[in-house]
């Protein structure tokens, strides 16, 4: 087992003004399951690009694969040595069949001009058989589940003589069950001598699958550790370089009239029998596995896809929420799960994004856009939420994940909402930024607004809420008082439903 497959020594990479990697030593053994973790900007993606040959390291690096040293390591060397990368976007063809997606690169390599569908099917079948997965060969890839698409990408990698499979954030949109299935496949590949390198920042998953974990911070290797020696807390400390306190916050809900009350809310094929109350100053947590209906509930409350039946009351008055405009008018704000797609206009400037929700108030007496008012509003929120931007005119896509999320938050806080729905507010951002976001949320409820915090991370809801509701198959199945239970107990309960 101690056979080294890939060995890298003294890897440096300097981009203009930034030392992305400095004297990195990194090693992967044959058939090993290895995990690479680090915060955003720690150099993970640069390291992967070097391993795949897409980026050349600075002079002085020593790269050895299978005992063979390489001077100038190129993409073609990487492919010949059996290194395959599955990027987050999977690089599949949605309009082609499963079989074609798996076999295409092999068929191209043969140089045949006429396609032989039997051969395509056979290549696909044998790749699937290697990892014991079974997906209909004639299905169009665009029409199968994301988890199956991931398996198709793996099978495609298996059609070549793969020795090391690198997977970038493979679990971000999979349910618990699907993650378990994926890990089963990885274990299967391991038994055939194929090494896997996971790049992830979901720490609990990392510890579940990996044998060894390498931690990167600020372009340097903090260390490589057997996963048995690590736990959540220790890993966080290694990644951030400081001890991050998981501070608990127990919001003080006022006793008065509920701000938001939902009775028997139902939407066919999404959720039903939803009852809850949300008081001023309260943070109510809703958790559950991916596909439990939690996001659908949020979308219904915000009017994106309105509920079929049931009542929504705001400050005791029944309201109809048929559209997003209705929701905003009634003082509901929504921060979506996927800020990249739904929350922000990525190529546009921070200031434009920030005032989008309140643009109708940013006008002068002629109903024209008032630049000075925009400037003032933007400056106020950038200060208040401590958004780090080179300039308010920088495109949002140039900011870090944490700062992007602050812009989304600011955009909605600016509307002066009574109820704020946050769906996965800290997905994909690193630990330190996460805590900053939590601080902002806690500050908001102190001012008397109510927050519905939806997250699949139990620790997140546990740390911030006094009540937590677990959703499963479109129903509220259990409510926890955080003062009377532990995060582990809630997690165990959720896992038992999976």
């Amino acid at each position: 087992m101690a056979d080294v497959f890939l060995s890298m020594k003294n890897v440096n990479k300097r981009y203009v003004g930034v030392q992305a990697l400095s004297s990195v030593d990194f090693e992967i053994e044959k058939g090993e399951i290895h995990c690479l973790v680090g915060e955003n900007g720690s150099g993970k993606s640069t390291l992967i690009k070097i391993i795949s040959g897409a980026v050349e390291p600075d002079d002085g690096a020593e790269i050895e694969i299978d005992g063979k040293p390489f001077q100038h390591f190129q993409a073609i060397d990487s492919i010949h040595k059996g290194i395959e990368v599955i990027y987050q976007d999977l690089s599949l063809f949605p309009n082609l069949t499963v079989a074609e997606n798996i076999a295409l690169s092999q068929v191209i390599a043969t140089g045949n001009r006429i396609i032989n569908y039997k051969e395509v099917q056979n290549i696909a079948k044998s790749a699937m058989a290697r990892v014991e997965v079974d997906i209909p060969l004639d299905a169009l890839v665009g029409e199968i589940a994301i988890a199956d698409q991931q398996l198709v990408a793996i099978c495609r990698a298996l059609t070549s003589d793969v020795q090391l499979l690198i997977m970038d954030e493979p679990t971000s949109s999979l349910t618990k069950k699907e993650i378990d299935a994926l890990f089963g496949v990885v274990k299967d590949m391991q038994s055939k001598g194929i090494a896997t390198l996971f790049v992830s920042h979901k720490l609990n998953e990392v510890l579940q699958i990996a044998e060894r974990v390498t931690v990167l911070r600020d372009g340097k290797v903090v260390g490589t550790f057997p996963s048995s020696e690590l736990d959540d807390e220790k890993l966080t400390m290694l990644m951030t370089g400081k001890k991050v306190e998981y501070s608990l916050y127990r919001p003080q809900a006022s006793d008065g009239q509920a701000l938001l009350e939902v009775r028997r809310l139902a939407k066919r094929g999404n959720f039903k029998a939803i009852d809850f109350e949300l008081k001023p100053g309260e943070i109510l947590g809703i958790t559950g596995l991916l596909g439990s209906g939690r996001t659908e509930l949020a979308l219904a409350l915000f009017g994106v896809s309105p509920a079929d039946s049931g009542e929504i009351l705001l400050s005791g008055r029944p309201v109809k929420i048929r559209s997003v405009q209705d929701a905003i008018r009634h003082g509901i704000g929504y921060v979506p799960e996927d800020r990249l797609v739904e929350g922000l206009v990525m190529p546009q400037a921070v200031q434009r994004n920030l005032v989008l929700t309140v643009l109708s108030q940013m006008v002068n007496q002629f109903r024209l856009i008032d630049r000075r008012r925009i400037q003032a509003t933007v400056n106020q929120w950038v200060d208040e939420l401590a958004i780090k931007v080179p300039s308010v005119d920088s495109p949002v896509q140039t900011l870090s994940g944490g700062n992007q999320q602050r812009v989304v938050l600011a955009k909605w806080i600016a509307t002066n909402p009574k109820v704020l729905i946050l769906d996965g507010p800290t997905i994909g951002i690193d630990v330190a930024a996460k805590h900053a976001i939590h601080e902002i949320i806690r500050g908001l409820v102190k001012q008397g607004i109510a927050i519905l915090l939806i997250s699949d991370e139990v620790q997140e809801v546990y740390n911030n809420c006094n009540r937590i509701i677990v959703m499963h198959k479109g129903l509220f199945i259990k409510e926890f008082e955080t003062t009377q239970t532990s995060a582990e107990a809630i997690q165990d309960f959720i896992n038992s439903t999976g």
Partner: protein
Amino acid sequence: MKKLLARHETYIFLVIVIFSIVITAINPSFLTLENLFDLLKSYSFMGILAIGVLFVLISGGIDISFMATATVAMYVVAIVLTRFGGNILLCFVIAMSIGIVLGMINASIIYFFSIPSIITTIATMNIYYGLLTVLSGGKWIYGLPAWFREFAELRVFSLTNAEGITYGISIITAIWFAVLVLAWFILRYTMLGRGIYAMGGNLASARRVGFNLLHLHLFVYSFMGMLAGIAGMIIALLVQTVAPNQIVGKELDVIAAVVLGGASLAGGIGTLLGTMLGVALIAILGNGLTLMHVPSFWYNVFIGLVILISVSVTAYRRLKREKRMVTVELE
């Protein structure tokens, strides 16, 4: 059965059947072999161009310049014919070569400068038309040789009706069908065809799995150009006069027929069957409205409505499918 209902083609086919029944009920001469053969001849032009447009759309691009290409091709052929003479084979070779060259120009600009295909081909359309108008002075060309007219009258298969008039499947229709078979073979059985689908589905991935995108671009646009050359020849054969402005402005009709047939403007999706049904629908509509003595002004209104309804139905079904995908299993 369920699979059949999920296909766009089934719906167009049903619409065609319904239209045919209505038209026949009003004017029985619609559903005669004579009329159908005639339609197959006069819509060969659109049918051939639609095949080229389908290729371009599947690849994720669009071509607006094909009518200009067709015009240039037939004009040059007509000049060569009237000045130097020649034979029908030579005519086709010249027309197709011009189409291929102009298509390659399109492809090269799109590939090397990564300019969106719509911008590129609008620009080249203007250049091709403009140069032709300047150089030709807008003159019409008459007096094509007798053998040119005779070729257009050839039939691969003839029948005689009750009044003793012969009719049948024109050589022009046969050319269309030959192109169709070639296109079908390319899309279905060659790596080239799968490459076109792959490129339209995900350009970056197509490069990553090893397709040569330059070759694919060159093929797609020069194939379109070649078919435009053939289409130009067909117009010349059908009309027997050649004018620089004969088919100007008909680009969108062809693109509409292909989209009607289920091809996606976003690329990656489209079938030959659908495209041919799209052309058939537009042909039957045009012919049927004439046979029903509807004033020709209404023709455009009907075409517009049919396109709108058909595309809406497809979009609505996709919307429903996407909604179904977020469905949570309720207990």
